[in-house]
């Protein structure tokens, strides 16, 4: 094993954004971050926490400490599968899944998500398709995501796609609603 140079494990106050916690607390889902007692039940129940760089509990601690960069750049928020197990078990009723959404939005706004990590791309593609057509077509969506992140995988997945098509379970047809303008007017008016 290659000996890693010693990594410094210290956080200077100057590196922190002291207002970050308050900002997150003001977003839907963030209301109760200051109620967290760091019990770890969220991370214990989370099926994905074992793959995360920081467990959800630590993300909350980081938010409160003002570790904005570390929190937004973490893979944690993108690994959340939205299963809501944490929200249900949390003894302080923190809406942790919704909190993850809040962080995802902040990360996208600030362009601070891990690059070439496919999930934010999926989110953006999905967003744009729906914004335009009102509906998505899974086949087209997946194809576009792979094209943008990892075209090689698209090839590897081709056989799966073929099987889906053959079983009538995927269409490359562009789905759309009738009142697209109405929808776009609506979406423009909110936010």
């Amino acid at each position, binding site marked *: 094993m290659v000996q890693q140079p010693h990594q410094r494990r210290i956080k200077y106050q100057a590196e922190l954004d002291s207002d970050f916690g308050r900002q997150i607390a003001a977003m839907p889902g963030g209301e109760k971050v200051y109620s967290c007692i760091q019990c770890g039940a969220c991370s*214990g129940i989370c099926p994905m926490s074992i793959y995360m760089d920081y*467990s959800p509990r630590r993300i909350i601690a980081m938010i409160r400490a003002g570790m904005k960069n570390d929190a937004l750049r973490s893979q944690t928020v993108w690994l959340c599968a939205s299963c809501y197990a944490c929200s249900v078990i949390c003894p302080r009723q923190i809406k942790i899944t919704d909190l993850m959404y809040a962080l995802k939005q902040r990360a996208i706004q600030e362009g601070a998500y891990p690059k070439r990590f496919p999930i934010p791309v999926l989110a953006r593609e999905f967003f744009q398709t729906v914004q335009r057509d009102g509906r998505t077509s899974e086949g087209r969506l997946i194809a576009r995501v792979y094209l943008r992140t990892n075209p090689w995988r698209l090839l590897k997945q081709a056989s799966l796609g073929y099987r889906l098509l053959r079983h009538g379970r995927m269409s490359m047809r562009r789905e759309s609603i009738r009142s697209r303008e109405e929808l776009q007017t609506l979406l423009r008016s909110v936010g």
Partner: protein
Amino acid sequence: MSGFNSSTNGHPPRIGVFICHCGTNIAGKVNVPEVVEFARTLPFVAVAKEYKYMCSDPGQEMIKHDIQQYGLTRLLVAACSPHIHEETFRKVASEASINPFLFQMVNIRELVSWVTEDGHEATEKAKAMIRAAAKRVLFHDELEPKKYPVKPGVVVVGGGIAGIHAALVMADAGERVYLVEREPSIGGHMAMFDKTFPTLDCAACILTPKMTTVRRHPNITVLSYSEVVEVSGFVGNFKVKVKKKPRYVVEEKCVGCYECIEACVFKEPRFPNEFDLGLGKRKPIYVPFPQAVPPVPMIDPETCIQFRTGKCPKGCVNACGDRDGIDFDQKDEIVELEVGGIIVATGFDTFDASRLPYYGYGIYPNVYTGLEVERLLNASGPTGGEVLLRNGQKPQSVGIIHCVGSRDENTNRWCSRVCCMYSLKLAHLMKERTGAEVYNFYIDIRAPGKGYEEFYDRLLQEGVHFIRGKVAEVSDWAMTPDEENRLVIRVEDTLIGMVRRIPVDMVILSVGLEPQRDAQEVTKLFNISCSTGNWFMERHPKLAPVSTMSAGIYLAGACQGPKDIPDTVAQAGAAAAEVLALTHKSVIEVEPNTAFIDERYCSGCQICVGLCPYSAIYYDEEKKVAVLNEPLCLGCGVCAAACPSGAAQQHLFQDEQLYAEIEGALVGVG
């Protein structure tokens, strides 16, 4: 009719206004000098002064002095809540020979300085409230506190350690005590425990002698298997109705030989024993546990053959023979007690762990609650003190999960206060008795009592594992071979920062404490209130922790909030002392806020008669008016509000007084 003429002999009233700084509590927000200036401008105010601590001796002396010097006839103190110092200043008035009810307290701390952001706003609000009181006090009447003789005797409700201790203290002081317990035996939860933390005394060894003393004490009457069904009257003069449920064994005739149990048609115990939480068995005729007080068996009609079929050879009756102690026809019996005071010591319930399915209680047989494990550990328990899994084997590893149903907004928000310590105790006992690896899963270890932290340290030395993290789930889902056929605890070890899966043979859930399921009904019965979460509410969290808002009714033990044994006993002693202080008085003074009916204006419409919650008003057929039976009136004022002709009024809350106060609070306010 009210009005100040009657009490000032035609002289204009002279009001003294005294405004307290309460250190910086009031003065830090309210501009007191400005308020004093303002008070001086109010009609009939003869003097207005401020002082740092009006409730202190110098403050009180100043008021008394000014009453004399300025010839004050009405008194107004603006300070804290009347619930705190109204009595203090009434006494001051009285000592300076003003009738104490010609006084009005203005709450400019709790209602003003502490709740208002802006200093100017607070000052204006204080002014308005003082103006309101200055108007109101003009209409006060001279009143005498109602005096009633105090009856001897105390009812203690609940025969756990709190009730037992309180009863013994009072009985030793010569007071007549009625100890009412709804279970067949006194002893409560403590009787179920094996050892007690942190000293590891055997619970039975320290409790049963007290139970026996209770039984033998000439001043104590134990009403077991009984419930209070009605409470009426007031401080010093309560009437308590107690329902004695039928045991079908006559207590007075029973000598405690238990031959009846021996002779029961069921040769072996077959039915789940409630006292052992269903882990042990009993017969239809049984005593809940060997040291029960009273040592009188009882028959469970649900399982007794005689009750179910009427065709039992009745071995019990034959065994009892001439003593004739078995009575299948026993009925509910109502006992009426007249006492001066009441102690409510109804204790707690444990959290129902099946409410959290992810901990597997009721799903996996080897998941137990702490209380169940107490019974397993107990030498007189169902296993004779041996800890065995349901398959009869000894556990090799045990997980103890803290905070089950505590510190959780989905169940109970509070810290149950005893679970950390009883978990440590169980951890120690499990290790000692089984040699198993013991894992404690905790959020925080709370060990603030005497010798508690030391006990925690002892456990750390003993090699018990402590993992900081709230357990996420207990399951029988194996990921690795060593997890097969075991219970797997999944938790984030928050100190290491990793999720861990720990396979164990036995899970102990340290269930939290909850108010008794029927706490709400009990509050209604005794006219006391509940704090958040249904714990009974004390009169003041610091200064009156065992009193309730209902005079003469006191609290002891965990019914007021989670408590361990030392705190419970201390509180029970305090409650006993408070009751003794009450019953040792010959008379009790009661706030004269009762109603009165001016018969000159009463048309006899009787609307008040039907509305009075205490049947304190009756219709006099001769005079054709409603008449108040004053001792029964507790002063709610419902009659005064409903009386359509204004004949019914309430002292201290007369129409004119309230009009004046409302008007004063509003008119002229910016």
